[in-house]
Every structure is written in C-alpha cells, then in structure tokens.
C-alpha cells in the first residue's frame, strides 16, 4: 500500500473530491426536503451553508490539497490510543449516548453527528497510514457495519423514545396505530421486489468498484504478521489477549451461542413484545447492548483497525511498525500471593511424589485463585439472589435465576479480567500449565 507519497496524494485527492461532493449532495437534498416539504426555512438555510462548505472542501480536494488533521493532533491521538483509553472511552461514549438518548435521537442532532463522523473520516483519510488500513478491501465492510449500526441504533432508539413517551401519557405504542390490514399483494411483494433490485444493483456496483482481495499464494512457511482471523471472529481473537485459547476460543464462544439461545427463556418480562421500547425492559436492553455493541462490535473494530504486528495496539494514524516493542510483564495471582505477599517461593511437591500428592500441592499453590473463582461462581449467585436481584429471584425461580446469574458472571469475566490486567498486570487467576488449565 505504501507507494510514493505523491501517488498516494493524487489517488486520495480524487477519491475525496467525489466523497465530499457526495456529502454535499446529501445535505442539499435534506435542505430541499426541509424547505419544500416541511417549510422549515431557517433549518434549510443551515444545511445549504453546510452544502457550500462541503463543495468548497471538495474543490480543494480535487485541486490536490484535501484538508487533513494537523500533525500534533494525529500524534496526540496515536499516543493516547491504548486498550484502557479505547475500552473505557467506547463504554463512556455509549453510556453518554444512552443517557442523552432523548437529545441524540432528534433528527437534526443525529444528522449533524453523521456529518461530523463522515467529515472526520474524510479528514483522516489524508493520512496514509489511516487510509491504508481503512481501504483494505476486506476492511471496507466493517466501515459499512459501523455506519449501518449507527443508523439502525438511531432508528430503533428514536422509536423507543417515542413509545416510552406515549406510554407515560397512557397511550399504546405507535406500532399499534397501524392495525389496519392490507393485502400482501401488492403492498408487501412490491416492497420486496424493489429491495431485491436495489440490493442487486448495490452488489454489482460494489463488485465493480472494489476487487475481492487475493494475496500471494498460500505458503505454510511465510507467516504474515499480524495473522488475523476473519473479521467477524476478531472479537474472539481479542479475548485471546486476556484468556487462554480454551476459554477465549472454545468455552466463551460456546457460552455466547448458548446464552443467546437462552435469552427468551430467561427474560420473564412480558412487556415490550412486538414494539420498540427501552423503559419497559431496561435491564435486558442494557445487558444486550453492552454485550453486542461494546463486547462484540467494538472489539471487532479494535481487532481490525488497531491491532497491528505482534498484536500490538497502534494508533489510527500510526505506521504498523513490526519492530515496535511493548514491555509486558504479567504476573500470576499465585506469584502475587506466595512470592510478593508471603515472601517465599511457590509451593512445590517434593521430587518423586505421586500424582495425588502433586495435585494437592498444585491445589495449595493455586489455592488463592481457586478460592477466588469458587467465590465468584458459587458464592455470588446466592448473594445476588438475596440482595440486588431479590425480585428477579422470586419471579424467576431457582433454575432460571442460576442460569442467568452464571451467564452474567461469565459475561462479566471478560471486562473484569481486562481491568485486572490493566491495573495489576495480572496474567492468570489460576495457572496450572501442567494440565493446560489457566484461567
């Protein structure tokens, strides 16, 4: 990807020129709609101004000098990029969007957000390192996914906010208003036909514009660095940083699938069936959104755009230097307890002892971690049932509650382990390499 800087600039200038013209067209259509259909002249004027600014930027780009981000800002962003800032930052961002949802779902606010995101992306594309990663053919769908998810989350949230307002006034959800029955031919089959034609056209344009990737022939001796799984599994690959493969690659993915299947049998809330709402099912909504948006999608984005050679984290404008070295000195809990806490060596079975004795010594060595895990998985559920989740427990009964609390605890195990790694450099809570059993 790294051709000469002049070639890169010429290529990206043309692309960005078209890109900004498209944004300008998008805004001018909105301005026309506001003025002509909604008679909101003041708002229309704002978007006309935005259109002109975008046309000006487009002409600058086509003239060969697209505006970019200043070097100091890019350096600061690169320097700030790290697992803590990324994870805490995305969580905080989602929390702000959730808490301020009444404000953010307003069409004009959401539209401004979309414009800002698109312009920020255009400005970033001037950076060669950013462009080379974002425009990699197999990464393009993920850029699409980010914008699609933004749009659909907005669509769902704005309807949920509307329905929650209606519920407060004692009105039924708006989905109930269109109770009238229509014939499937023509009302549905024509929509489907139009969808199919539009999608076919979209795929053909995509196929012509972007060639499917084909790298050098397979070679089992030349390992690429980084070696990445297909993009939709990068969340799982990210978990490998914190858990061993048996957890990150086998147990946790199985639990994700199992947990998804269990949702309808755990969720005893009868409300919110068949319409968008947040207030009426806050708990299940928040758990699902945290799991899907934060622990699945943002980890995929991290794995795709930020993980470079040696699985190091790189800033969005940073060159993927394979020689970047990060000091990593992770310590097991047993080390913390015996060596640092008690000031002695790790307990070790006397040489020549039998299997039983050896296992006992291992249990002693890993005792603190084993106790911690037993407490987490066995003592917490009853504690939850008698305190914060008391009402849940009464309504759900024993089996359902145990199922839910254990799934939640497994789900929470990932962010907890992340936090422990960042703060204490903790490697394993229980580390039994003799039996490949590290947790």
């Amino acid at each position: 990807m790294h051709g000469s800087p002049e070639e890169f600039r010429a290529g990206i200038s043309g692309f960005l020129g078209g890109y900004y013209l498209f944004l300008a067209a998008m805004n001018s259509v909105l301005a026309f709609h506001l003025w002509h259909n909604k008679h909101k002249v003041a708002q229309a004027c704002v978007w006309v101004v935005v259109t002109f600014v975008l046309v000006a930027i487009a002409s600058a780009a086509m003239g060969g000098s697209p505006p970019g981000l200043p070097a100091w800002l890019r350096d600061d962003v690169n320097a700030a990029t790290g697992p803590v800032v990324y994870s805490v930052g995305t969580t905080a961002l989602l929390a702000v969007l959730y808490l301020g949802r009444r404000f953010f779902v307003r069409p004009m606010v959401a539209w401004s957000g979309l414009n800002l995101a698109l312009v920020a992306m255009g400005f970033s594309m001037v950076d060669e390192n950013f462009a080379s990663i974002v425009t990699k053919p197999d990464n393009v769908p993920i850029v699409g996914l980010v914008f699609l998810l933004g749009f659909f989350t907005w669509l769902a949230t704005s309807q949920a906010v509307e329905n929650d307002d209606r519920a407060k006034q004692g009105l039924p959800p708006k989905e109930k208003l269109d109770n009238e029955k229509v014939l499937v031919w023509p009302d549905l089959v024509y929509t489907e036909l139009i969808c199919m034609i539009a999608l076919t056209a979209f795929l053909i344009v995509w196929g012509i514009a972007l060639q499917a990737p084909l790298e050098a022939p397979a070679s089992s001796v030349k390992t690429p660095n980084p070696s990445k799984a297909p993009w939709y599994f990068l969340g799982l690959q990210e978990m490998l940083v914190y858990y061993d493969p048996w957890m990150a690659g086998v147990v946790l993915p199985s639990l994700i699938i199992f947990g998804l299947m269990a949702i309808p049998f755990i969720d005893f809330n009868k409300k919110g069936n068949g319409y968008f709402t947040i207030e009426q099912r806050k708990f299940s909504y928040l758990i699902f959104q945290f799991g899907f948006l934060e622990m699945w999608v943002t980890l995929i984005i991290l794995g795709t755009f930020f993980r470079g050679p040696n699985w190091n984290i790189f800033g969005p404008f940073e060159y993927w230097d394979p020689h970047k070295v990060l000091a990593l000195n992770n310590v097991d809990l047993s080390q913390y307890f015996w060596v640092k806490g008690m000031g002695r060596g790790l307990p070790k079975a006397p040489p020549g002892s039998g299997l039983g004795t050896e296992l006992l010594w291992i249990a002693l060595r890993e005792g603190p971690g084993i106790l911690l895990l037993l407490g987490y998985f066995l003592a917490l559920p009853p504690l939850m049932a008698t305190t914060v989740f008391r009402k849940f427990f009464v309504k759900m009964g024993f089996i359902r509650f145990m199922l839910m609390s254990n799934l939640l605890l497994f789900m929470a195990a990932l962010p907890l382990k992340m936090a422990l790694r960042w703060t204490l450099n903790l490697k394993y809570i229980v580390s039994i390499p003799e039996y490949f059993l590290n947790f």
Partner: protein
Amino acid sequence: MSIGEMIRESQVWKSIFRHPMPQDRRNRIVVMLTNFFLHLHPVSIKKQGIALSYTWCMGGVTFFLFLVETVTGVLLMFYYRPTLEWAYNDILSLRDVTSLGILRELHRWGAHAMVITVWLHMYRVFLTGSYKPPREFNWVIGVILLLLTLLLSFTGYLLPWDQLAIWAITVGSNMARATPILGHEGPGQQLLNIQGIDMITNASDARFALLGARFVGEETLNRFYILHCIAIPLAVSLLLAIHFWRVRKDGGISGPL
C-alpha cells in the same frame, strides 16, 4: 386480440397461473394462495408489520443474499477446483481472464453483507422483543442460523488458497486444539488415556477432525469445500424452511398485542 391476451388465454399459460392477473381484490388473494413462492406469505398483513421502520427488511435481505450466494456459488463451482494445484490459479484466472469473473466479487461481498445483515436482523428482533412468547423457539433456530452463517463464511474464506485464507483459517482453527478434553492442548486432555497411552494427540483431536490433518493442507481444503458447498447449505436450507414456517405458525410477524 393482442399478443399479450393471446398468451394469457393460451392453455400453457393457464396451466401455470390458474387465475387472471392479480388486479382486483379477489385475484390478489388467490395469487397468494396458489403460487408456490408466494404462499410463504399470508394473504393480508397488518400495516405495521410491513413498515420498513419496524422490520428494517433485514431478515428478507439476509434470505435474498443467501439466494445470491447460492446462485453465484453454484456458478463459481464450475470454474473452481479445490486442489492445491488449481485452487489459487482458478481464482487468479477468475480475476484476470474468465468472463464474468465478477461473480467472485459478488460472492465475497455478498457473504460479508450477509454476516452484517444477519446481525442487524438479530438486533432488530431483540430490540422489538420479538423473541418473547410465543416466538422463543424461532429465536433459537435463528441463533443456530446465525452460527451457520458465520461458519459458511469461515469455510469459504479458505477456498482462494492465498496467504489471507490459510492464515485466517490457521488462526481460527488453532482454537480447536485447546478444546477441553478433546483438544491435544486443552485442559483435561490427559483424562482420555488407556494404560498410559494418550488417546488425544495432535493427530486425533478436535482440530484434526476439523482440518483433516495436523495443519491446514489439501485435506482441509477438501473438507472445507464440502462443508461450504454442500453440508452447511443443506443444514441452512432446512433450518430456513423451519424458521419461515414458524414465523407463520407463531402468529406472523410480531407486533404489539
């Protein structure tokens, strides 16, 4: 009599379509009942149930992409040979020489799009609470279909046999080696042994079953090809049929009670 009328009055036409054009209310109902493809749908539906702001059309788009993948996939199978000798070269010639080599682009981008749309479909179904009774079982089927979609994409990823392919599959399938008890580097692997001889080695564990070899090689290519083109699509087709049938039997598309 115009040509159109002559065709529509002919015995052949009438043998296929057993009623006049669906232009009045009666025939619009009859067409839904007598056409094999249309009978997936009910005759009439609540207006809310077809509002795009509610359905996002994502289930339908996913199904349509599955059809696109099937058609382009079958056509690609005419060109592509899953052997070490030919796999890469066939893809190369699809790109550079073969007419309509764009089929590969359609197939690959369609596959990425299908993964995205199936997530969006799940997202919508969750956010509208449509998994709640009586649709619990259909949600379970949907989760299996989601998993199979990912596996379809994963098995297809290997077939171009380039660096991207084999290393993505190597990274992905390395996990299987750590399967508890059944992977040769998994916890509890020592449990399965007979008189001190390990039953689970790198030539008999879960990863070997997936790859057909100790590393990603020709056996893997063959295995993934069959999974990708035959085994998983068959399973998906069956589950899709059940999924659609259950949508109807569980009361049609969800909506407020």
